[in-house]
């Protein structure tokens, strides 16, 4: 018993969680001694929510190595005992293997996808008819707030980090990420944020109910459930920043010999760009939520107009992160789609350099558009015009990408299997989301449709039709590599078609609802909107059910699918040149990169070679035939 509690792991994490709670209580007891019992139980909760998870991470062993090192004690010998997974239990401890961490990330975030989706189903059940159906107004406001927060901070952002965690080091020919222990810590920060946000439903006064935007002063005066968001976001944000730094250092310093920047696969470029965005922008949302926490906990007056606070300042700081966040949630998807389209169309990516430069252009422009979320906020009027122009101009690099993908398809040999279907679904749906984005840049139109269902439609075309479709595409595409098994192609196609059809039936009518005048974030609505809302609700239930096909396919294939070959897609990039799943340190010999990543159709083209002259073959491809000796 005591040995279990002394060794790093989940039991010790539980023990340390309790110690953290006790420590917080002690701190408050001392504070109350000085202040004359000024601190209420909410104060205790806030301190405990910050301290206990950190204690739990210590208990889990996330800091063990650094503590030993800092204390001058002999560090653990580098026997790689914390590396790799030999049984399922290895996924429930601090593990330094990027492949294990990648799967931890992906599985955890898909759990939150299902939770977030379920919250959406509850919302649609409530909205099926006007008036009250199942939940009261406060619970409804909580549903959409937690739905958005969970799916943004616990699904889309981390699932991309997870997929990239798995494949990015393989793609650049590295044995692991640059900072494996930091990588493990980044992952374990995530469940804390997720559990905290979900736990808010049990808070007195209900969960946080101010939207994922948490505008002050509504959030500074909300019941204690708000703190679960305010503090939870800090953990998710810290996780993002640490992962992004890790990616940047890994990409800059750990590329295989010969892997110049312009020989990197576009997924690597996309995560390089995304990581730049994360590192620069995420501190701003951390700041915005610390402001809220200080207003709530210590009575600061950042956003209290009566005491000289500035309400609009919150929105500027918040959107300075949260607009770039849209690209944080989209650029990795661009990377995934570039990989899949090239491989599945059997052609090089059209205009590779422009694809890379357009990513960087989006990064730069992404920081200059935040106030387009504030066209009706009452901010100074002149700033709307430059923000309109920059917002619209972002469509140019995005357009370059879309047209280049189309040109990549042209005259290819299109393998229309599940990853490709989702990639093509992304291409069509994201175009619609992008176009409504350009419409929303136009200030006079935004004045009418902001805060309506038009916005709900737009954001779901971007994040569901855009990001989620690329995530599904990526999961199917790398499933053989990650699990060593093949998924069921028939079920995959069924999943695509049900998702694609009912996604459109759910979200397309919302454009009309919004322009007609239905505001968003409402628990009840005028009678005239009843028909469309019922239609949307029914479609959304089927859309929700379609994810069960996916879940079944993944679980069943992982357990008993046919064994996957090393390179079932005949891809050139390095992750496919090792076994499925890859060896524990990825490459037995370091690869040397000698050409571009997408040279499909070029006779004799090679992307990487292994030391000792054994060339990475472009396996059995007819185009490679002439080059064969």
């Amino acid at each position: 018993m005591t040995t279990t509690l002394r060794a790093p792991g989940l039991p010790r994490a539980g023990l340390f969680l309790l110690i953290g709670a006790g420590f917080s209580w002690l701190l408050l007891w001392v504070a109350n001694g000085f202040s004359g019992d000024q601190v209420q139980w909410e104060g205790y909760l806030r301190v405990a929510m910050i301290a206990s998870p950190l204690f739990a991470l210590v208990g889990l062993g996330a800091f063990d190595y650094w503590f030993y090192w800092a204390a001058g004690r002999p560090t653990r010998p580098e026997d790689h005992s914390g590396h790799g997974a030999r049984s399922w239990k290895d996924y429930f401890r601090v593990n330094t293997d990027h492949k294990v961490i990648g799967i931890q990330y992906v599985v955890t975030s898909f759990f939150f996808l299902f939770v977030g989706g379920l919250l959406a189903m509850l919302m649609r059940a409530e909205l099926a008819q006007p008036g009250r159906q199942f939940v009261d107004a406060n619970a409804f406001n909580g549903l959409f707030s937690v739905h958005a927060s969970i799916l943004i901070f616990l699904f889309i952002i981390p699932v991309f980090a997870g997929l990239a965690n798995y494949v990015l080091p393989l793609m650049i020919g590295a044995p692991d990420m640059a900072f494996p222990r930091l990588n493990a810590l980044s992952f374990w920060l995530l469940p804390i944020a997720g559990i905290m946000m979900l736990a808010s439903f049990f808070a007195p006064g209900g969960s946080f109910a101010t939207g994922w935007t948490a505008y002050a002063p509504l959030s500074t005066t909300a019941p204690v459930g708000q703190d679960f968001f305010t503090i939870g976001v800090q953990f998710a944000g810290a996780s993002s920043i640490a992962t992004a730094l890790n990616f940047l250092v890994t990409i800059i310093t750990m590329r295989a010999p010969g892997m110049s920047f312009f020989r990197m696969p576009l997924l690597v470029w996309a995560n390089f760009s995304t990581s730049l965005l994360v590192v620069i922008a995420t501190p701003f949302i951390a700041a915005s939520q610390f402001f809220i926490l200080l207003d709530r906990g210590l009575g600061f007056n950042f956003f209290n107009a009566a005491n000289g606070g500035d309400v609009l300042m919150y929105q500027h700081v918040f959107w300075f992160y949260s607009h770039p966040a849209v690209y944080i949630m989209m650029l990795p998807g661009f990377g995934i789609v570039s990989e899949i389209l090239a491989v599945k169309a059997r052609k090089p990516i059209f205009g590779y350099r422009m694809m890379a430069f357009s990513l960087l252009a989006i990064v730069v422009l992404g920081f200059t558009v935040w106030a387009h979320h504030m066209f009706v906020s009452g901010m100074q009027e002149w700033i709307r015009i430059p923000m309109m122009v920059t917002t619209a101009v972002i469509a140019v690099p995005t357009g370059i990408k879309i047209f280049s993908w189309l040109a990549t398809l042209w005259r290819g040999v299109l393998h229309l299997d599940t990853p490709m279907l989702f990639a093509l679904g992304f291409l069509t749906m994201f175009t619609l989301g992008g176009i409504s984005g350009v419409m929303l840049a136009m200030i006079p139109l935004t004045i009418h449709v902001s805060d309506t269902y038009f916005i709900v439609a737009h954001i779901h075309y971007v994040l569901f039709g855009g990001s989620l479709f690329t995530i599904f595409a990526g999961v199917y595409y790398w499933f053989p590599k990650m699990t060593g098994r093949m998924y069921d192609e028939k079920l995959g196609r069924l999943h695509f078609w049900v998702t694609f059809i009912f996604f459109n039936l759910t979200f397309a009518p919302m454009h009309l609802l919004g322009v007609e005048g239905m505001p968003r974030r409402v628990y009840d609505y005028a009678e005239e909107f009843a028909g469309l809302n019922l239609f949307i609700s029914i479609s959304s239930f089927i859309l929700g059910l379609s994810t069960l096909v996916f879940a079944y396919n993944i679980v069943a294939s992982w357990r008993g699918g046919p064994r996957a070959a090393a390179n079932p897609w005949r891809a050139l990039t390095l992750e496919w040149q090792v076994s499925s799943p890859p060896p524990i340190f990825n490459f037995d010999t370091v690869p040397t990169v000698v050409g571009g990543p997408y040279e499909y159709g070029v006779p004799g083209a090679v992307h990487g070679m292994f030391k000792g002259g054994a060339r990475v073959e472009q396996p059995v491809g007819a185009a490679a035939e002439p080059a064969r000796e």
Partner: protein
Amino acid sequence: MGPGEDTDGVRERRRGRGSIVPLVLLGAIAAALGVALGLLIDWFPTPASTQADPIDTLWDVLLIASVPIFVLVQSVVLYCVWKFRMRPGEELQDGPPIHGNTRLEVVWTVIPAILILGLCVYAYSVLNDIEEAQAGERRINVVGQQFTWTFEYPRPDGEPIRSTQLYLEEGKPVRFFLRSEDVIHDFWVPAFRMKLDAVPGITTEYRVTPTKVGTYPVVCAELCGIGHAYMRQTAHVLSSEDYEAKMRELAEGGGGASEAPGQAGQGGGTGEEGESAAAGKQVFTSQGCGGCHALADAGAAGTTGPDLDQVLRDMDADQIREAIVDPNAEIAEGFGPNIMPGNYGDTIPPDQLDALVSYLEEVSR
């Protein structure tokens, strides 16, 4: 036949299938149909202001500009799926190694950029159009609070007229000055197409010229708490005569207080019932009770909360006071908890609360 020849043969066939003519034809037809469909849909609520037409026209222009781009992308995808999908026997084939085409890339960078900048210039002119100052603007203060709007019509002499429903005169330009008592709200009349946040600590403003007699919903478009969905009121656009009559009626207190609620309370310090009731009615109006509740005597017709003409009938003064101060203690049938703010006990001064309770008790008898 060697493998190389086979590859070339297949490439040759695929090139032959890459003709662009059917794609252009199909795309053009689909684009025309898409634009026609987009323009046929009745998107907007009935326009009722001079701001509505330019915005609706902008929408049409945006549809005409963007639907063809959307259709172009769809057509290319579908065409590629149809023409270039892998056929049996092509499992091991690759496409031609085309790495790019500078001219094409310049074209699809420059054309969208020109299109987008053109749209920006047009949108800018529309913006100037709808925000232009008009001669003879009438000022109306819009005050948002959880969860109701109060409208103030300043008068050159004395206190402004107040109402919980918005009254506007047809054809007369109005300049709204928005304030908020608590959190951020957003004052939106979809029929006018204009909206803006009411932000605590600052006054924001926008202009509207109503053009059509009728009643239109007023909506709060910024999440403001539990009752956000219910923060819906009505805007009445009236003809000149009706508007004058309504203002006179409001000024005389027939549906809205004409004086500050505190004043009458101070004047009626004797505690005499009649005066106290008159003060109570002003409290009722100034606190925006009519935004959610119906009460015939005060001309209020809100539907968010219980109809006070019905529910107050069997209640005595203490019960009415409790229902205001602690609305969750006992909830009228058919309504949920936590919709009515629970802090009126703090925000309404005690003398005004007394006046309100005795007024409600009196009118419900």
